[in-house]
Each structure stands twice: as structure tokens, then as C-alpha cells.
């Protein structure tokens, strides 16, 4: 069943998405997978050649205790990168997203998954996250507005690489 996803392309909007989340401890054969899958980074590392030559559409997800540089060499081979927020108060994903964007130059989709609530979306967006699997019990219809809470920011982040002091 498709899930709803907040996605920023030119404008933020709510779209449908069918990527299947594959658990971290999945150790099955590629033949067990089909369609659109989001595999853990460890699985990708182990099976990258087979995944690349398969018919699958493959995205990779990173947990908050994994580092951005573990996937930097295959960023161009995946549909998108997802960052897991195991708890919303675990803020490592913000740094991981910025590193993917600003250090490794990744221009594709970065998706927030896990404990993704409404009130953190603005900060996530600033750090370069471009799609959001808002937790199912939260009203995703409110999420577009949440990205508009602040119209100005002081500091450099991916969405505004010029600090306010260079613009004011």
C-alpha cells in the first residue's frame, strides 16, 4: 500500500510512495526483493553489484550511528538516500544530511525516515533533507505549512549557503 510522503521538488507537496523499507538485519537473497526497496547500507555494501544489475529500484538507508562517508562512493548508484531518526531527539541525522550535501556533493533525494514529527521538518529541510516520511499518527497535511514557519535564518545551512550577515 502506498504511503504518503512530503517531498520538496520545486515546491513542497504530498506525494505517494511505494518504496519498501528493508530491516537492518535482513540477510536474505536479492531474489526475495522486488519492485522498489530501501535497503540498509550494510546490505548494499555486501550486494552492490548484484543490486545494480538487478531490475530492482534500490535506495539505501543509513542509521543515525553510521557515518555519511560509508556510502559516499555509491551515491550515484542509488535512487535516493534515507536517514533514519530512531528517536526524534537523536540529532545525528542533521549532521549526516549536511555532510552528504556539502561534503560529498550529493544532489539527489535525501529522505528522513523513522521518528519524523512535524516540528523538526524545518531544521531537517535546512540541513538538506528533501523528503519526509512523517510518522503515521501525525497529520501530514500540516507538514507543508511547517516548512514555512521561518522566513529567515541567521546561519549557513544547505538551503541557504550565505549567512544572513552576508545578505543583510
Amino acid at each position: 500500500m502506498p504511503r504518503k510522503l512530503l517531498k520538496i521538488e520545486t515546491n513542497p507537496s504530498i506525494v505517494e510512495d511505494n518504496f519498501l523499507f528493508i530491516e537492518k538485519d535482513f540477510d536474505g537473497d536479492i531474489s526475495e526483493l522486488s519492485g522498489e526497496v530501501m535497503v540498509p547500507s550494510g546490505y548494499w555494501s555486501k550486494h552492490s553489484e548484484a543490486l545494480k544489475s538487478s531490475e530492482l529500484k534500490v535506495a539505501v538507508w543509513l542509521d543515525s550511528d553510521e557515518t555519511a562517508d560509508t556510502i559516499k562512493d555509491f551515491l550515484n548508484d542509488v535512487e535516493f538516500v534515507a536517514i533514519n531518526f530512531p528517536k526524534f531527539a537523536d540529532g545525528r541525522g542533521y549532521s549526516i544530511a549536511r555532510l552528504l550535501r556539502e561534503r560529498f556533493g550529493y544532489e539527489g533525494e535525501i529522505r528522513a525516515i523513522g521518528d519524523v514529527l512535524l516540528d523538526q521538518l524545518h531544521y531537517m529541510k535546512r540541513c538538506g533533507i528533501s523528503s519526509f516520511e512523517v510518522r503515521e499518527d501525525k497529520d501530514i497535511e500540516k507538514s507543508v505549512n511547517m516548512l514555512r514557519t521561518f522566513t529567515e535564518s541567521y546561519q549557513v545551512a544547505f538551503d541557504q549557503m550565505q549567512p544572513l550577515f552576508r545578505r543583510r
Partner: protein
Amino acid sequence: MYKYDHYDQTIVNERVAQFREQTDRFLSGELTNEEFLPLRLQNGLYVQRHAPMLRIAIPYGLFSSTQMRRLADITDKYDKGYAHFSTRQNLQLNWPKLESIPDILAELADVEMHAIQTSGNCIRNTTTDQFAGVALNELEDPRPWCEIIRQWSTFHPEFAFLPRKFKIAVNSNTETDRAAIQVHDIGLQLVKNENGDTGFKVLVGGGLGRTPILGEVVNEFLPWKHLLTYLDAILRVYNLNGRRDNKYKARIKILVKAMGVDAFSKLVEEEWQHLKDGPATLTEEEFTRIKGHFTDPEYQELENQDKLLSEKFAESKAFKNWFDKNVNPHKKSGYASVTLSLKKLGVPPGDITSKQMRKAAELADKYSFGELRSSHQQNLILADVKQSDLPAIWEEAKANGFATPNVGTLTDMICCPGGDFCALANAKSIPIAEAIHAKFDDLDYLYDLGDIDLNISGCMNACGHHHIGNIGILGVDKKGQEFYQVSLGGSSYDDASIGKILGPSFNAEDVPTVITKIIETFVSNRTEDELFIDTVRRLGLDPFKEAVYAKKAA
């Protein structure tokens, strides 16, 4: 002082609207307690023993008489007519209603104030010397740097969910350190290199709490324009590597200790190489803009008033006492800085009534260019007072309960709200402060003792900075009973040190006697005019232990 432009005002106004909407969602049940918690904390809102507590930011302790009047109005309208200055130079309200917090924030925003990041696991209010900009022996005014850090840290998107809270302090004085930078997550000391260029000596990993540690130097000279990229690098290393499995081991100090300062510094350096010279690099233009907000007021050309003052001293010993303790020298001749003491016997340290707040605003307008400061010792300061006005200001301060001539002495205690108000506390702290104050109310004796920092915390979160008091008192809970552990030898200044525990803890009622015994031991062992801290350092704890724990002769 810093004046908002439309950007600053927009950001603060948008915050008010955001928090109003978040509060509505919490009250309607859409947000759970756990989800609302970090949102309210990052707006300074705690849920406490009796009521919510709201911590209002006073960036680096500087505010105007207009802001003080607004704070007084808020204190009357939404609270019980009194408020509390904290050890982070902020102001706390003890009894506001949750529903009215958005309105309070809106009233604050009207006067360019807020409660942003006064709590929570984020970058907190940056603090500095309460005499910044007017002190002797200052390399340069540290406040523009504090404001630059304030703007950088406000809603920093990457560092809103750190492993734990994060505190930065800046010192620019070459002779002393009133900002206690060695016990901060990051301490910044302004320095000049051999070419006369400004930079920062950067310390990381100091802190109090359960594991008191002094910060270690990670960079001896960071050129000023790299300040923000370097802070970004430190915070990123901490955000990615700090422990998140145990909140008592989550501060950056634990990470620095675990890795060793060399390995930590190397990681920061590597991260910084990617950020260095990037867009966050400070510009001469921005520094000039910010510095333009911290110009000297319109000082008159005045002589020092030695003759007038010595005549007044001869007339009144009480005035002399107040001058000696509560007046500080000023960089400009003919001027002085006055500390309005919030340490009156019978009043919790740092507490202030709305009437006093209005009076302080009036004194600021009349005598000190309309500006006030709060200190981490929980007092108020009028920084730019004409020496010729000192007798008049003394009379007015006295009449309003501000002139207790005890600044720097044993009774100028730092004290957290403790078990009377705070949900975290193991024990009460205010009654202990009061009992000690009552015991040492004889001013002549107090002055003979010289300066002694006595700090009290009601639990090991150490909001009362007990580790760095010359005498530290920590409230502990033993099987539901309140006990107090005493430590000696702490210091927060440039010779900073962490106090050592004297021995087994005491009942509340024994604490004043224990302090008396410690002081008596000091008096009988001190060399002429030796400071308490120096006697403790010279003799160690043994003579104090003997005096305090000696068995009564049978």
C-alpha cells in the same frame, strides 16, 4: 547594546507564532508530553514542582531599562510579583501558566526579548563578564563576539538536538575571569598574537554537574574571522560522536576525556579544514556592524572623585563598606560600576520583586544611560555611574533593598532555586543559604574574612556551581532525607579549580555550624590578609576535616 533590525524582529516574531501553534497542539492532545518537551524546553519552559517555570534569555546579561520594565510588568501580570536571576544571567519566572506562555513571549518580543534556547539539549545563552566593555584590563569588548555567537546559535538547524545542553562563555579580561570559561563546554578567551591580531584561545570540555572537569585547550590562537566555522566544527564532532545512551555521560566533557584532548582536537581540525574559509567565515564588515551596537555611551570628561569620596567615607562607615564591596573601578575616569546586591538576608539569592525591578530600571535611567546587566553571581549591575553620583545612588539602593554591602563575601552566595521550586532537586538550598547568611550577618567579621565564594546546589546538576565555590554545598538525598555535602577549594576564576569533598555529609541544621568551624579554622591558620582559597590551597583539607569531624571529648 544590540538593537534588532527587521530580520532579528521577524525571526523572534515567527518564533512566538510557532510556539503559540505548538502550545495549541499540545493542549489539544495532538502533541504528546514527550514530543512537546524539547519544544517547550527550547523556549525556556520547564514543568516544575508547583507550576511551569519560564526562563527568559538575557543575552550575555545585558538589557535596557525598557526591557526591565517590561519584565516587571510580565512578573506582575502573569506571575506573583517576583522573579529570579539565574546563574546564566537569565531571568526565571516561577509561577506562569502554561496557557499564557505564548502571550508572555509576544510581550517579550515587543521589547526585543525572547526565551529561545534557554533550556534543552541545544546551544544555550552565551555568557560573559558582567563588567564587559567598562572593566580595567580588558583586551577588547567581548560583547560583539557574544552577539555574533548568539545569532549563529539561534535556531542552528544542525545543533537543535545535541546529546546534551551546550554552554559557551567568552572572557576578554587579561587579569581575571569573571565568566568562568574553564567550566564551560566551550570557553573562549580573547587574545592577541605577536602581530597584534585578535583571536581566541579555545577551551573545550569544561563543566560542572556530576563530573566536574576544567576545559582543555584545543586551539591556542584561532584568528577571529574563523570563529564560527571553528565552532561549527566542534559542534559537529560532538553531535556525531557524543554519547546518547546515558544522559549523565552525554556532555562534551565526557567525549573529550574519553578520546583524549589530542585526538579530539585532531578530529575538530580535520572537520574544520572542510569548513574553513567557507561562507560562514566572518567579515570585517559584519564585525564592524555588530561592534557599532556596543559603542561607549556619551561619557563626560570627569576627574576621579577621590576627595569627595574620602569625605563621604569619613562621614559614613556604611557608605565606605558599600563602596569597598559593591563598587568596581571603571575604564573611564570619574566613573564607576555599581553592583545592586540581590543577596539580602531573608531573601532567596537572586530573587527580585517587580517593585525592585522598576526601581532598578529607574536607577539605570537616572544614573547609568538606561542600561543594566545581570551577573552569573545573581546580582544586578549599573555599569556607567558617575563617581559623584555614588552617594545618591547608595541612598536609593539602600531604600530599595539593593545595597547589602556583601558583594564577593561569604554571604554573596550563589544558590539555585533548590527543592522549594525545582523538580530536579534532591534537597532545599534557599533555607541553607538563609541560615548561613544569618550566622554571618556581622559585617565587620565578614569583611575581615576577605572574599569567599560560597555556592549551593540542591542537586548534582550543579546550577548553584557548588564545585567552583571556595566553599561548595551540595544537597543530596539519602533514603528520602536531605543531607548536605561540603567541598572546599573550588574557584571559578583564571586559577579555576574543582573543590574537594570534605567528608561525610551533614543534616541541614548542622550546616551553619560546620561552615562556622571551617571559617574558624581558616581564621586561626591564615597568614595576614590571606584569602580563604589560598589558605585551603596551602594547608589542604586536613585541618578543616579535623575541626569539622573531631569527636567531642568524652
